[in-house]
């Protein structure tokens, strides 16, 4: 009892030092930090073994590989934070990517900005479908989007058949988006970073953004508190769809072919990126920046294991271990927070 009092006293006397120590402590508590450290170590070790890893072309490849997953992870974070999930992102991306290919085949002179807008609108439409099903039918998002994963993929198969559109069918300027760089960053990566910043600001700095956390922490309490839960969740699905649409258009810019199977299986990479980046799978905590870093980490692991000539069959196991580590860190952090809360509340009594 007395020691606690002493602590408090010293705390107030050395307020200045305490504040800077507090800043350091809160930095250490950041959920993004372990991901950042892991990423830095990974890049460093790979670079020391194979200097080519950080050549201009190598860096460009690393960024390009992460770009599309980064955008998808930002969208997915919006949903996971509200205790929802969207498993249909790979299928949505596939539909929009094939749509982009068809659009350019039909109208080669369409301005790129218009194609981006159409792609995002198409994605938003698909997201609306998910959002309506989840909020109106009140069925868990996991089940709904598992269904739409197959529905969208089926539509894509029916629409595309064996047809594929190749890079040569699209204007050179469109393909150049994922080739040209500004200050060493590929243009589509800059676009992805802008998206992540925009979503991050929305999530941490606006009322509707904070509402999403409240919904994920306790949906019932959020409803009692007067938050329009259904509306917010619906809009999150819509936004996620629009981002998947954007990713779909960029996919068509970067890769050679778009067809019936484009984006298949991508949803699991996206969820893995968010989880590794510290987004709690049961909602309520995590950040977009973390998810983006998670995406960068996962895609960098693939590249670095190849650069180190590690057998590629190990890659999946390593990704799995990372997910487990992320979940354990999450658990330990939440236990510590709970303990701290107990102690501080006990003091107040």
């Amino acid at each position, binding site marked *: 009892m007395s020691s606690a009092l002493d602590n408090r006293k010293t705390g107030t006397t050395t307020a200045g030092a305490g504040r800077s120590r507090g800043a350091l402590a809160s930095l250490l508590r950041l959920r993004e930090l372990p991901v950042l450290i892991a990423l830095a170590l990974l890049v460093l070790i790979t670079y020391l073994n*194979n200097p080519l890893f950080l050549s201009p*072309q190598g860096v*460009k490849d690393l960024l390009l590989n992460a770009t599309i997953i980064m955008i998808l992870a930002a969208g997915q974070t919006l949903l996971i934070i509200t205790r929802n999930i969207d498993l249909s992102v790979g299928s949505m991306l596939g539909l929009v990517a094939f749509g982009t290919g068809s659009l350019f085949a039909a109208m080669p002179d369409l301005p790129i900005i218009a194609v981006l807008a159409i792609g995002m609108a198409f994605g938003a439409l698909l997201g609306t479908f998910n959002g309506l099903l989840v909020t109106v039918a009140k069925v868990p998002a996991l089940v709904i989007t598992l269904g739409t994963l197959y529905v969208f993929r089926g539509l894509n*198969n029916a629409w595309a058949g064996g047809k594929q559109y190749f890079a*040569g069918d699209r204007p050179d300027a469109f393909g150049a988006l994922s080739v040209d760089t500004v200050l060493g960053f590929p243009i589509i990566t800059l676009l992805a970073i802008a998206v992540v910043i925009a979503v991050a600001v929305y999530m941490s700095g606006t009322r509707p953004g904070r509402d999403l956390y409240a919904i994920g922490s306790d949906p019932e309490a959020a409803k009692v508190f007067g938050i329009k839960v259904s509306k917010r969740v619906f809009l999150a699905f819509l936004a996620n769809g629009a981002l998947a649409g954007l990713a779909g258009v960029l996919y068509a810019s970067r*890769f050679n*072919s778009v067809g019936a199977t484009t984006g298949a299986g991508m949803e699991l990479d996206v969820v893995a990126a968010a989880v590794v980046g510290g987004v709690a799978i049961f909602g309520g905590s995590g950040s977009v920046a973390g998810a983006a870093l998670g995406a960068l980490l996962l895609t960098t692991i693939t590249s670095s294991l190849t650069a180190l000539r590690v057998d*590629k069959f190990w890659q999946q196991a390593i990704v799995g271990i990372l997910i487990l580590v992320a979940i354990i860190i999450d658990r330990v952090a939440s236990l510590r927070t709970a303990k701290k809360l107990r102690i501080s509340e006990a003091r107040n009594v």
Partner: protein
Amino acid sequence: MMLNRKKTGQAPRLASLVALTAAAALALTACGGGGGGTGGGTSPAAGGDQKITFIPKQLNNPYTDVVLGGGKKGATEAGFASSQVVGPLEASASSQVSFINAETQAGTNVIVIAANDPDAVCTALGEARSAGAKIVAFDSDANPDCRDVFISQVVAKDVALIQTKLISEQIGGSGEIAILSATANATNQNEWIKFMEEELKSNPDYKDIKLVAKVYGDDDDTKSFQEAQGLMQAHPNLKGIISPTTVGIAATARYLSTSAYKGKVALTGLGLPNEMRPFVKDGTVKEFALWDPAQLGYIAAFAGKALTDGKITGAPGDKFTAGELGDRTVEEGGLVIVGPPTVFNTENIDKYDF
């Protein structure tokens, strides 16, 4: 009688329907089986109700579509009453089995299959054969014990040799090369790679060429793309890549053409002219090879017809006529060869449309 039955309710009516369908199916199978077994020497017109089904590695694959286009044409010309295509959307080992089972139950006379895994489809094919169906493997062989004939694009060794020849020409006969293949257990790719490795070891012309890596892009655009990147980083002295799969070569070409390695690292392999045209024109790829995939399906259909009519049994020396492509002979191991591969470059690529 009918009225009585109707009155007794749904169940008996359903039962009689099922019985009727079953009887019809049995009768049809019997007909088909009989036609196949005793039809030796009869004219094609005798098998007017014969059915042929193509089961590719996966649907919605552009290469497969060209093959199947030739197959449909061949099936009509050979005199099949109906031809259809069924198959999985994913090229995995076990995904074809349920489709084979369905064809067995439907009493299809000829099943033409490109096996995703030579052994995984064996049991199902065995059941189909004992029900009277003839099995023609094409594109990628099934285990020889479970099929009648295998229609091979070209002599496997020729495919391998043309690719080693092309890469050697393009890198000036010396340096490090790598192979970017389809899946690690793909039958045809692995056979070609085996021949390539032997040739590189045994041919003195290739003594300065070193094969440093074999990687697998799983016939997936994204994966092949990243494997190509990885090759560049892991092997800074790489002079050339051979990609014996159409998805792999196109993805690698796309990567090279958008990276600093364009023009510095040679690329060759097996590709579709329509897919490779921009990369040949922009100088990323000098020359690559392929056979005409449509002929593969075309000959497979005629081989199926000859088998089911009893004109051939799949024994070495058997001869049959494959429509406009002329006579083909069954070789050792039930092999039927389509023809030599074609090499594509800037001069001739515009003449091809597939």
